[in-house]
């Protein structure tokens, strides 16, 4: 067989295998297959090693080369801490009052949900998807669909798992969707990501009075994400292209550039806070 024909044949065989793998990927479940698991097990230490070197460089930059304004920032943070402590005292009082009122109305008490801390060991390799890799997987109880958050707010949802790693699709990815509410007006909408790194809240009632500055939180109505998790703050409000709904550009609460760990919220059998009257159906 001439050399050129042989090379084309090799290419067609490999390309055809790739097409078969690509189309079979759409019908697979979200747990890593038998071929992928050894790859993640072998490559996880490599990524942790690269991450360690990068982290060392980052710490050197932050702690030794970027200390010019550390003193001023320290003073500012101390004053802010004092303000937060005063505010916390007021909020604790309101929380106690809220608990008493909820008991009076015979509503179920929401408990702290079990969660699992995980280190971020990598991010999307190509940069076209907003995704991170964490150091926990299905062996630790992580399942697809579970939400992940930081102390600041919701980060994303688990997209797929392998025994010792998991991929989290961030809320800033255009393919992400989270059922949310505007905190002040209680209007519902679906939050998805934008290419520039922000988020957009779509399908909000056109009569809504939401405005820039309003907080957005999770609604809990999908049964997987707890109600009341901070998502972000509204930056601007517009009408959708067809005028049937309002859309709001949302600045995420979580700082994706600085986060190093996330908490994966593990589900429980009763699900999360659902609409009143439907709790006993779970």
């Amino acid at each position, binding site marked *: 067989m001439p050399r050129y024909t042989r*090379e084309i044949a*090799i*290419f067609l065989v*490999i*390309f055809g*295998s*790739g*097409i*078969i*793998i*690509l*189309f*079979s*990927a*759409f019908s697979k479940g979200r747990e*890593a297959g038998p071929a*992928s698991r050894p*790859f*993640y097990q072998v*490559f996880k230490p*490599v*990524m942790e*090693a*690269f*991450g360690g*070197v*990068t982290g060392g*460089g*980052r710490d050197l930059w932050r702690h030794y080369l970027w200390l010019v304004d550390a003193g001023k920032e320290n003073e500012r943070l101390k004053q802010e801490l004092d303000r937060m402590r005063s505010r916390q005292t007021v909020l604790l009082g309101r929380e106690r009052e809220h608990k008493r009122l909820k008991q009076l109305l015979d509503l179920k008490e929401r408990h702290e949900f079990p969660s699992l801390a995980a280190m971020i*060991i*990598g*991010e*999307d*390799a*190509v*940069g*076209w*998807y*907003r*995704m991170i*890799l964490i150091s926990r997987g299905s062996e630790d109880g992580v399942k697809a669909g579970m939400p992940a958050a930081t102390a600041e707010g919701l980060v994303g949802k688990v*997209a797929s798992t392998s025994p010792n790693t998991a*991929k989290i*699709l961030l809320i800033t*990815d*255009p*393919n992400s969707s989270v059922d949310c509410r505007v905190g002040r007006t209680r209007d519902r909408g679906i939050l*998805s990501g934008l*290419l*520039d*790194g922000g988020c957009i809240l779509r399908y909000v009632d056109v009569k809504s009075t939401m405005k820039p500055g309003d907080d957005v939180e999770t609604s809990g109505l999908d049964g997987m994400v707890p109600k009341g998790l901070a998502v972000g703050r509204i930056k601007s409000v517009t009408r959708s292209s067809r005028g049937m709904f309002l859309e709001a550009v949302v600045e995420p609460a979580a700082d994706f550039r600085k986060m190093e760990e996330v908490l994966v919220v593990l589900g429980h059998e009763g699900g999360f806070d659902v609409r009143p009257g439907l709790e006993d159906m779970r």
Partner: protein
Amino acid sequence: MVFLTFAAVVVLGAQATSLGFIFPMEYKPDIFMVLVIWAGLTTEFRSGLGLAFLGGLAMDLLSGSPIGLLALIYTASALLCHQVRTGFRTDVPAGKIGIVILAVLASGFVVVLSRRFGGPLGFGWPSAGRIVVRALVSGMVAALLLPVLDRSYRGFGRVVGGRGATDR
């Protein structure tokens, strides 16, 4: 093939971790494409194709893309590189950088198009601008990385003996 395997592991590790520290995610250069283009222009056909396909599968596992998409993109890039090599002079650095920029442009459009089928992704100037900037950043990184790969490959050849800088 040993050199390509080692280079692929280093590039994959850097692509998924360290590069995010230097570049914002939306403009992260595709250094694995630089490696695929270099291998397609320098090493023998089967080695370059194997690197592109298997490395592409690894990239799929380390990203949010459906498994097989990046493997196909890199494989097609490796084949095109081989065809260009047999028909044109490819030892000019500007030519290699141009090929990298075109390859990243093409892969970007394919990925955005595939995402468009999956969800409400805008396909206007923000997407196109991002693809163009990313291609240019990849070209700039290629200008630094390609000579390093050439020198490393020549050094590797001297250490282990056998093949030299180019395999034709």
